[in-house]
């Protein structure tokens, strides 16, 4: 689970890069010098205050999620990141000198974060969201550096990436950067509150929310002008964070704050799929920064005008119109999702409220049923996986039923096929 799959679109498609190369990018654009090795800094030399600040910033950046394998040592890398271009493995960012970043200087670290170039001069895949990190101040990057350098060194080398033929050739990445990497720092907007500005700085920079919540073009770059229009991450949709969000009328700073901090917002949703670990990370972030993020996202969600189908809820006559499925629902889902179930009366989102059931695309609803939802802050289950209990048709029937009973959205077309496809996708 997990990682934001920014990298997703990672590197660039073969022919995209070919195009870039075709443009005759000169060698001097590709070339980056090696930065000399240093001895790993002594932990005692790092100020506790700086480490603590770095820890908070690292929580915003979610470093630990992408750089930790399932049940592996924290920050030691080797998490597999599936992208349309193949599988990448995250690097070890513990201060181990051989396999980690122990002999990286602060300069080398900053360059990697902002320009996507490793200490030895090789180009990094944009799975590392340097097009966002480039907006982070040097001070903040130094704090993150101090935090990482104060961790336990772990010796662990990531397996080689498994990319489509040709994409393993890293110099191509220079071309990608030319197209997508913007290094301008974000200027503050004096007409907005300091909180809003702080929020924007975090969201666009370290938090790299656009990494998942913005659509990607065919080269794996975030689409220009479509900031926060929603994207895809690890088989789940990352809902839009702009006015096209199906719940946007009802999200506000308070509910966003609650959601980001606890993984669940009353009247909305629980964080599922790759968003789970994000909220787990944010649960450790200081309240002010979480509130700032909520403030900024609240503003993006209500900017612009997008018409969307109004209203939800309204039980309608689903029970009558889907008699067979209503019984299936009672036996499989009723214990939690009937209106009187303890879950429903105790602050967990009602099906009528969850964005998954209201969304135009059934992907997340299907994933939640197939994979279940884990409590982001413990190893307990919120929702059990039904993948082995129910057939594709049954999942589709149940979701069609839930959509018609709990929302007034129009039915999802081709549901059974979509379930089948997503199940196949998950099996890979």
């Amino acid at each position: 689970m997990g990682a934001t799959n920014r990298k997703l679109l990672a590197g660039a498609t073969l022919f995209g890069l070919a195009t870039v190369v075709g443009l005759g990018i000169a060698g001097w654009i590709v070339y980056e010098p090696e930065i000399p090795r240093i001895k790993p800094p002594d932990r005692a030399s790092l100020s506790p205050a700086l480490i603590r600040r770095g820890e908070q910033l690292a929580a915003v950046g979610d470093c630990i999620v992408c750089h930790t394998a399932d049940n592996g040592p924290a920050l030691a890398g080797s998490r597999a990141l599936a992208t349309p271009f193949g599988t990448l493995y995250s690097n070890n960012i513990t201060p181990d000198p051989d396999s980690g970043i122990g002999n990286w200087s602060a300069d080398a670290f900053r360059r990697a974060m902002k320009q996507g170039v490793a200490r030895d001069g090789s180009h990094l895949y944009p799975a590392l969201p340097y097009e966002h990190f480039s907006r982070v101040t040097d001070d903040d990057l130094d704090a993150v550096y101090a935090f990482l350098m104060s961790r336990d060194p772990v010796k662990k080398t990531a397996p080689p990436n498994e990319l489509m033929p040709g994409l393993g050739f890293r110099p191509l990445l220079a071309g990608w950067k030319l197209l997508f990497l913007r290094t301008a720092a974000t200027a503050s907007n004096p007409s907005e509150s300091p909180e809003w500005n702080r929020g924007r700085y975090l969201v666009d920079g370290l938090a790299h929310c656009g990494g998942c919540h913005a659509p990607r073009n065919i080269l794996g770059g975030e689409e220009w002008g479509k900031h926060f229009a929603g994207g895809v991450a690890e088989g789940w949709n990352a809902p839009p964070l702009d006015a096209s969000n199906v719940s946007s009328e009802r999200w506000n700073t308070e509910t966003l704050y609650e959601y980001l901090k606890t993984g669940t917002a009353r009247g909305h949703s629980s964080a599922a799929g790759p968003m789970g670990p994000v909220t787990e990370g944010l649960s450790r972030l200081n309240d002010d920064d979480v509130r700032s993020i909520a403030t900024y996202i609240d503003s993006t969600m209500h900017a612009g005008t997008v018409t969307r189908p109004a209203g939800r809820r309204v039980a309608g006559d689903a029970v009558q119109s889907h008699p067979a499925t209503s019984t299936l629902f009672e036996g499989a889902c009723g214990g939690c999702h009937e209106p009187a179930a303890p879950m429903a009366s105790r602050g967990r989102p009602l099906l009528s409220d969850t964005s998954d059931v209201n969304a135009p695309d059934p992907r997340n609803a299907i994933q939640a049923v197939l994979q279940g939802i884990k409590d982001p802050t413990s190893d307990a289950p919120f929702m059990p996986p039904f993948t082995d209990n129910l057939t594709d048709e049954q999942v589709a029937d149940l979701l069609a039923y839930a959509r018609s009973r709990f929302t007034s959205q129009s039915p999802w077309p081709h549901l059974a096929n979509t379930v089948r496809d997503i199940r196949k996708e998950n099996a890979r």
Partner: protein
Amino acid sequence: MTISITVNGAKHEIGSDPDTPLLYVLRDDLELNGAKFGCGLGQCGACTVHIDGKAVFSCITPVGAIGDRSIRTLEGLGSVDAPGIVQKAFQDEQAAQCGYCIAGMIMRAQALLEKIPDPTDEQIREHMQPNLCRCGTHARILHAVRRASDVMAGVIR
């Protein structure tokens, strides 16, 4: 309306409503004790049975959803007189305190060993993660799964 299901190789005609969770059908209609009611919410594993060889929570599987898939319960693994390998391993390790969770534990372990006969300790823990025990029998359960695996491999008897 009757529903027919295959449990431990035998076909049964059931008079229950199709929404009835398989758990209640097994316990009340077929009088099988193996699957236990623990939470009814798919969160504890006490009710674990196999559907087509996969470990599932029977408490959230409506009987009408089973179709022609085959069900196996604890009773299908062996009997008091002729326990199955995993059952025997749990007995040999004395892996029970109150024992309420144990039926589900055995079923989940069985599903693992049928897929991966020689799992690592890490794989065992990971696989058993959905099942809860309150008495703290976990260490013995882990030993029992290891023992069953060793017996299957012929390392011990």
